[in-house]
């Protein structure tokens, strides 16, 4: 019976039906390919961003693709409760929250000399008692060079070493800076910035804005910084020939006791830009002291707990949310890609670069 019904039908319109089925499948595949980036080669993706880091400095298997050189630290945060008026995050209730952190220098080369850049970074993971986490990555500079992921990518491309000289092409760099006047504030700072001799004496800035949310849902845009208690300056930056003085200085200081930073929260006024990390907020903005970060231990990153932590700045507890800063989702997405690459290398998965032995080249 069924056959009798369907045979004429099959004869009549099958070509059109096959074409329709093929078209539906093809359109679905094309849409999937576009959304997934395979059919959108111009779109900036996390993978393309991390690929550019590797093109600029090489691939160091097992290491972060940026801020590759660093040390693990551990300690705790003693909250004084003052930030609780602005953020309901449990970390700001009076009391202690354990912290696993990492000091590092920017760059993809885990063997770079500590004096190669004037910037130091501090990454922290606060493990709240309620199981939530707050992860933050801060840098010792007042502003970020660029405001968008696209500009950051363009900067990386401009910095790619010329195969002929092994150095970035000055013309390309000049062209990038000319096209990106928002880099002026950072460049002015970088002109006089000196590589510090110690992680302990640096002030670390969130750079990106975030939004605190209080218990009633009221939102307050903020930036934060870790202000060091140690101010001795650390003397001249490293002895000649010592490329790794920062880790040694840190261990030396911790042997004499814990290091402390004050967590300062700067409250934005209405109208202060939250989407532009190249701009500081006026210096009269209200700042509250949220408590004290105490770092009391350090371990090499190969064996420390920080090695396996992705300091994704968008791992936030209830009470802190991302601002509209376009760098934040880009950092989160790119860090995830870097984390997958280095953990894949650690797992010796096929197709990944082999981790290198622990030696200085």
């Amino acid at each position, binding site marked *: *019976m*069924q*056959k009798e*019904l*369907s045979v004429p*039908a*099959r004869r009549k319109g*099958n070509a059109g*039906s*096959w074409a*329709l*089925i093929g078209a*539906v*499948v093809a359109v*679905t*595949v094309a*849409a*999937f390919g576009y*959304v*997934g*980036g395979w059919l*959108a080669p111009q*779109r*900036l*993706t*996390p*993978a393309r*961003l991390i690929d550019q880091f590797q093109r600029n400095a090489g691939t160091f298997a097992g290491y972060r693709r940026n801020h590759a050189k660093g040390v693990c630290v551990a300690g705790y945060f003693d909250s004084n409760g003052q930030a609780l008026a602005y953020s309901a995050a449990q970390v700001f209730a009076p009391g202690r929250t354990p912290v696993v952190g990492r000091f590092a220098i920017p760059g993809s080369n885990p063997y770079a000399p500590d004096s190669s850049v004037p910037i130091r970074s501090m990454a922290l993971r606060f493990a709240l008692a*309620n*199981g*939530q*986490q707050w992860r933050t990555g801060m840098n010792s500079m007042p502003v970020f060079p660029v405001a968008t*992921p696209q500009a950051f990518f363009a900067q990386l491309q401009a910095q790619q070493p010329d195969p002929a000289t092994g150095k970035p092409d000055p013309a390309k760099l000049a062209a990038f800076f000319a096209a990106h006047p928002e880099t002026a504030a950072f460049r002015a700072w970088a002109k006089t910035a000196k590589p510090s001799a110690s992680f302990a004496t640096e002030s670390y800035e969130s750079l990106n804005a975030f939004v605190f949310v209080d218990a009633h849902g009221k939102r307050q845009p903020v930036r934060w910084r870790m202000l060091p208690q140690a101010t001795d300056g650390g003397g001249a930056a490293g002895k000649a020939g010592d490329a790794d003085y920062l880790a040694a200085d840190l261990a030396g200081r911790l042997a004499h006791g814990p290091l402390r930073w004050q967590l300062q929260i700067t409250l934005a006024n209405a109208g202060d830009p939250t989407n532009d990390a190249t701009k500081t907020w006026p210096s009269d903005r209200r700042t509250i002291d949220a408590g004290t970060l105490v770092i009391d231990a350090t371990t090499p990153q190969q064996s420390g707990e920080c*090695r*396996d*932590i*992705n300091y*994704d700045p*968008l*791992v936030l*507890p*209830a009470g802190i*949310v*991302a601002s509209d800063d*376009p760098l*934040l*989702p*880009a950092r*989160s*997405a*790119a860090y*995830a*890609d870097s*984390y*997958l690459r280095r*953990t*894949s290398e*650690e*797992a010796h*998965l096929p197709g990944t670069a082999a981790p290198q032995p622990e030696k200085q080249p």
Partner: protein
Amino acid sequence: MTPTTGTFTLPARVLHWLMAILIVAMLFIGVGMVASVSARHEWLLAIHKPLGIAILILAIVRLAVRLRHPPPPLPADLPALQKLAALASHWLLYALMLAMPLIGWAMLSAGGYPVMLGSSLRLPPIFPVSPVAFAVLRHLHGWFAMLLFLTFLAHMGAALYHGLIRRDGVLSSMIRGRRKTAPASIGYSGEPAENAHAADAGSNGPDAAERIE
């Protein structure tokens, strides 16, 4: 076990079309968020995790419905190879819709991430922290997503083949809950008319195509 009736039950049809929308959306959300550095990355990720858990719960309910109410048999004249492909792809779909959320959950656990479904709703970890396990699970999550997408394509293509070319009632058995032409071995009594609307809601495309008949 209730005997087969030649139709999919109303819960089976509602679950099928609801999950079809959710799973296809999930596949697009997944590939879209990992290929984006814009704010889209964040809000897609915020949907991805709770939606994954919703799919896991629905998949468990659906598996129970499926085991309790076996689906109508395929047309008796369907070639054995196509029957086998149908059976295998259906169980592969079930396996993937259960495995994908669990792998995602385990992967975040292994990576040491708090598994947040919202700003404060957190699931417990289901896997010990391990970077090696994270890498393996994260790749599995991606590969299985591709396999799920391919299986979905085959499933959709086969459904349209049944509806447009074979016109054997297989597609309408999932849309209307009864077949226009009964399989040789099975008699059926007409499905109550009020059942039809629930399935029609989510299926303009295939349903419209079926009406061409």
